[in-house]
């Protein structure tokens, strides 16, 4: 499997990538994916490196706990996190069954996410990370929540923060719960 750090040499291939979500596509198309201040991007390439099959971008983050003391909201760090900023599979390849092992079906999204999680386990050896956080689109929710154990962050998030109109699910997983941790 050919998953490498995204660099300028793949920019031409990036123009041909689309996952069906304009925001996620734009991140790859407009050069943002090359900006280290916006995380590090990894692309899954075909063996001949002539097509971007999928990509993900990860960045350091944190999870905070908020307590209300009197009239004040107090933020306390719960732990360091790696946020999966973006993860997507090429539109034409979504939903393609790669292999079936008994009842287990494996798709490209599974492979991308597993590579991402293994990278996070490596990073934990170098820096303190307690959580993986991800904001999943409605369509991605099944992969993260049902298949890979990511939990909804908080049901009543709307009382704490306001999100855009895009329907998304804030999810987390403890790094200790990644298989192989």
């Amino acid at each position, binding site marked *: *499997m*050919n998953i490498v750090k995204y660099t300028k040499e793949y920019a031409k291939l990036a123009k041909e990538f689309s*996952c*069906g*979500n304009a925001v*996620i596509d734009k991140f790859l198309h407009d050069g943002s994916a090359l900006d280290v201040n916006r995380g590090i991007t990894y692309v899954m390439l*075909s*063996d001949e490196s*002539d*097509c971007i*099959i999928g990509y993900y*971008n990860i960045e350091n983050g*944190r*999870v*905070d*706990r*908020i307590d209300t003391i009197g009239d004040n909201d107090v*933020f306390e760090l*719960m732990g360091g996190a790696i*946020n999966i*900023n*973006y*993860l*997507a*599979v090429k539109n*034409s*390849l*979504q*939903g*393609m069954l790669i*292999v079936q*092992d*008994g009842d*287990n079906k*494996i*798709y490209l*999204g599974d492979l*991308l*996410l*597993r590579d991402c999680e293994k990278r996070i386990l490596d990073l934990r050896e170098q820096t303190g990370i307690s*959580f993986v956080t991800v*904001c999943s*689109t409605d*369509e*991605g929710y099944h992969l993260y929540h049902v298949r*890979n*154990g990511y*939990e909804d*962050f*908080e049901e009543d998030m709307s009382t*704490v*923060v306001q999100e855009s109109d895009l329907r998304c699910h*804030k999810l*987390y*997983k*403890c790094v*200790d*719960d990644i*298989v*192989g941790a």
Partner: protein
Amino acid sequence: MSEEKKEGEIIMNACAIKPTLPFVTRKNIERTPASAENKKRVDFMDSHNFSFSIDKETGSLHCKVEKK
């Protein structure tokens, strides 16, 4: 389009998008150990090599899966 493929396309979109606001919570965060199904799937992925090539004419994906 078969129902299975249609369902797969809906549920395996895999998209994640960066939120505009931070991850904050008023609750304690609980651990959720991996399910048996999840472990089995991960074990399979870790024990096999996957290779992909794209047919330039049709755009279709050819994949090869081999045990390590």
